[in-house]
């Protein structure tokens, strides 16, 4: 049941949303964002899965399969795998920028509490 994977992705995503909405520690907020990204990876890879499928590689088909059956859909979806790869790289880049900002905020305000970061409040 691939639906279980989808539900897990939804739960992990919602946990990330909850973390971001309720936590005040900036590091934990970044961790919540990472959770939401991970939910995206789980969803993409689960959507690429097909029952009894093999990796999308054009070598000799596994025993019991023919080239024709592979082309009909007994491989995992290569496009979604590629999008997951893209998402991982973007996730790393975004997390790096966020963490740098958190370190600078900590140095400037001497606090990781989002409520203490009030420099822009009128």
């Amino acid at each position, binding site marked *: 049941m691939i639906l279980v994977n*989808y539900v897990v992705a939804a739960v992990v995503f919602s946990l990330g949303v909850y973390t971001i909405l309720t936590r005040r520690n900036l590091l934990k907020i970044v961790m919540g964002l990472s959770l939401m990204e991970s939910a995206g990876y789980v969803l993409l890879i689960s959507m690429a899965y097909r029952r009894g499928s093999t990796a999308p590689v054009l070598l000799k088909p596994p025993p019991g399969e023919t080239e024709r059956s592979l082309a009909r859909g007994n491989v995992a979806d290569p496009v979604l795998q590629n999008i997951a790869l893209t998402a991982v790289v973007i996730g790393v880049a975004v997390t790096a920028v966020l963490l740098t900002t958190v370190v600078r905020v900590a140095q400037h305000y001497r606090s990781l509490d989002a409520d203490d970061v009030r420099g822009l409040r009128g």
Partner: protein
Amino acid sequence: MSEPAPERELHGREPMHRPWLGALAAGGVLVGLVVAFADLPDETAALPAIARRAMVQTLPKFRTTEPVSAVVYGFRAMDTFGETFLLLAAVVSVVVLTRTREPRRGFMGEERAGEEEQRRVDRGGSDEGSRTAREAEAEEEGLGDAPATPDDEPLATPAPERAEAMTVVTRTAVRVVLPLLAVAGCYLVSQGYSPGGGFPAGAVALGLVLLVHTAFGYRRIAPVVRPVVMEAVETVGALAIIVALLLGIPFAGSFAASWVPLAPEQTLRSGGILQVFSVSELVEVGSGLVIVVFALIGMRHDWAPDPESDSSEDDR
């Protein structure tokens, strides 16, 4: 801010923003997502047309046997191009955010004057605790009376182990593992099933650099990971990507079209433009990740004065 922060953390009563409201919103998101996901194609559905197209056209179009690489560097080359420059933008932001004050062109000595003032504000030398801390830090950074390389230290030296380098066990293990990992990374990008794999190989390159950094200390790896060197390497990678994709216009009629002659599949040169793009991507991603990690590691201590713990009577 009435009670001290460490106490709050210790007793697990971390302050939160309206947990019930957050739970409500997150629960709403959860319900919405589950309802939406219930309609997604399941594991018995046929592959979407775009995936079938990728499976069918990979071999005739790129002479390679790996559709995922063909999608990354061929069919969706434009997206990967954009993604690469998003990564570059992130690297530039990190570098800009972490860069310390540095002498500019036409340097008048402001920085030295500023350091003088900073020292007056800090008054770090005056109290016993912070001086010991500073000495310990200097010792850890290898500015103490340690030998030039950790390998010169006699074996079985008593503790404490310094942050400069790890024990002889770790150093030997890293020396053994490093070439193996390097070969594995090169294999990923050059052969694998087929060309492609610039992104994972870039991550492997970062892993190698970090292993050396952990085992042998920053001073041994510094000549390689200096920003001057790495930023040049990254620029070369980015330029190589731009040139490789632009050459598609004169030779193949459109941006990112495959203009490199196709070699037989399962060889080093199979895939045409894929291999060129993937190798440039390795340079770009590897150097970008190294820059980001070392920019974060090397962020200077640049703290604002703390009104609570610093002696407040003579601060401004």
